């Protein structure tokens, strides 16, 4: 394995680490001055961004701990006079929110796994091979996204019904994989295209089969791409509403976006439950992405050397 990695790294022209370091040192002194000015500016912009991004979330969080009486009169718009965790208590004790959450996590994670496998395979095929009909496939992938989902749910319902996949997480996952894969494929194909072909050739010279090349060279180098595609697929499945609403009917398969709708009645809107659920629903994504974002580090060379 070691020999192969060296060849791969060598093939794309990574210079000796020491030399890179010397060059960096030279430019670093020059940009030091610039950084002293740029640093505070960077933090100011970041803080502004975080305020804009988190402001509405903070309002939601405050609403979730506001006593119900104040919510009836003012909706999500006032500072609470005192904090109340009744919304959270009710959410967990009287609604099946835990099931919604579990269904969402299981469905989204399954979709990520299956869609990444399917999309990686397709991306490798489209990036590394030239064959007749390739452009047709590339076009088809985009065409598949053209219609609004409202027009597709009726025939999809019928099909899932005849496959006995209605009201099941499996049925949802199948549909989600179908609709998440085109973008994931394109995204991964883009990353593969940016990896030089010399890499494959070096591997072939070393006697790799195509399968081995994929397993030991392409996948490791694709990590930033896989992280981005995985994040997209996860959040797509996490937020998807129309298919989830139409294809599920019991707490055994209903996901969070469907569950939230139950808190909005004709004459009663449970702001306390809605916002408490919203605050909690953001946590898995937040934590998940904080873990995944570690893959969004370092350039191509670092990935190739580390393997």
């Amino acid at each position, binding site marked *: 394995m070691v020999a192969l990695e060296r060849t791969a790294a060598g093939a794309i022209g990574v210079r000796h680490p020491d030399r890179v370091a010397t060059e960096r040192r030279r430019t670093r002194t020059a940009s030091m001055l610039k950084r002293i000015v740029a640093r505070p500016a960077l933090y100011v912009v970041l803080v502004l961004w975080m305020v804009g991004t988190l402001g509405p979330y903070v309002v939601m969080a405050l609403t979730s701990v506001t006593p119900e009486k104040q919510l009836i009169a003012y909706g999500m718009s006032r500072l609470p006079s005192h904090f109340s965790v009744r919304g959270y208590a009710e959410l967990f004790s009287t609604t099946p929110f835990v099931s919604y959450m579990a269904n969402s996590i299981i469905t989204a994670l399954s979709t990520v796994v299956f869609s990444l496998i399917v999309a990686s395979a397709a991306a490798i095929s489209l990036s590394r091979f030239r064959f007749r009909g390739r452009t047709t496939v590339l076009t088809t992938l985009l065409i598949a996204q053209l219609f609004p989902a409202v027009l597709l749910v*009726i025939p999809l319902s019928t*099909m899932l019904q005849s496959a006995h996949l209605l009201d099941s997480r499996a049925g949802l996952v199948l549909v989600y994989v179908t609709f998440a894969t085109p973008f994931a494929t394109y995204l991964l194909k883009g990353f593969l295209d940016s990896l030089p072909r010399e890499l494959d050739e070096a591997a072939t010279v070393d006697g790799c089969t195509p399968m081995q090349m994929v397993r030991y060279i392409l996948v490791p180098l694709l990590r930033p791409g896989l992280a981005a595609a995985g994040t997209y697929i996860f959040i797509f499945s996490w937020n998807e509403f129309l298919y989830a609403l139409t294809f599920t009917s019991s707490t055994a398969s209903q996901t969070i976006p469907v569950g939230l709708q*139950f*808190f909005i009645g004709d004459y009663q*809107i449970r702001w306390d439950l809605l916002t408490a659920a919203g605050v909690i629903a953001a946590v898995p994504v937040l934590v998940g992405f904080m873990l995944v974002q570690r893959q969004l580090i370092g350039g191509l060379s670092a990935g190739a050397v580390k393997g």
Partner: protein
Amino acid sequence: MKQFSWRRTGVLSVALATVVATLAGCSSGTSAASTPAAQSTDTTGQTLNYWLWVDNATDQTWQQLADEFNAESGHGKVKLQIVPAGQYLDKLQTALSSGTGPDAARMKDEWIGSFVKSGVLAPLSKQIDAWSGKSTVIPSAWNAGKVPGSSEVYMMPHQNTALYLYYNTKLFTQAGLTAPKTQADVVADAPKLTGNGHYAFDVRGGAGGQDQWAAWMYAGGAQFVDSSGKVTLDNSVAQQVNAAYLGLVKYAPPGSATASYAQVLSNFLSGTTAMMIHHVGSLAAVRKQFGQDVGVIPVPSADPSKPSTLQTMSGNVIFTSSKHQELAWQWETWLLGNAPMLKMSTSPQGQLPVTTAVSQNPAFTKDNGYQVAITAEQTAQSWPQLPGTTNVVNATWGPAIQEAFAGQISSGQMLQTLSTDLSK
């Protein structure tokens, strides 16, 4: 690299797609056409798939009723499937047209016109006439299940609402006013109630606003359809009443022309507006906020001796595609029994009972809001159950009145548009 023929695969794909399409196509579409088979009255062992929406996610009343029904012997069991209120109509229609619909379902009177036209609802008059409990139901409640021009009943009544007017007594006293009796009073009082961040009334041009508008129109003496089922919403009386309503936008808080229930309720409860047209569905929230500092009166009419308002009925229907129509009938009539009716109507999401006995229960005489509503019920009218009503109520009323509020179209043009859409 060896080339792979995509042309051949293409041909194969099309063939496969056709097969899939044919298979999938066959299983749908038949639902609407099938006729109820002769059924025995013994439904033991059957399970009824019943769809409903609930108004409060934490309220267990419906499930408790189903459990009580299922604990009885002599009939089958009911399985509840709760659908979010906001998407109920969409999901029900999708399910029916893809052949995955329920046996029976909760339904609103304003929707049944298009369902009856499509032939998916089982006619119920014959069974109702033969039913011993028929006389326990308030006679006018049956009208909610009929379509104009026919006496056939397609929906069993269950929970009714009749719209009335709330007014903030403190704001009225401050302005030196007493409760309005006529629509002319409302129009005259509106400027006096507006100012210093206070406003008279939310005209609610957004979702759901058509109900308070229709209550105003009926109270003003407008007729939506005549006895033959012809739409008469664009006549001169209707135009006058509508013009008065449109004029109130000047005394409405900002955003009122597109406001929906959440904003309207919040504005009234926070004292931003002085009046609100709604029904017992908001009574608990209003009492929690104001206690007795709020007045509940009938919707002011043009002529106080001829009161009217809108009533909206939620009832229960049976689908022609169902194999358990007898069990559906047993469940829907069971819900009209004394104990279940009282339990539902007094629950956190309860509305007005539709049986005479229960509406005389002390639970509905304690709060005068209920008395006002029950009195109003006697002269209230429903949305006409025309095939076009669903479209008007859910889609075209909003844009039409919003354009009228903005002065882009006249009162007459607005009613013209709605008449055309109702007759579609």
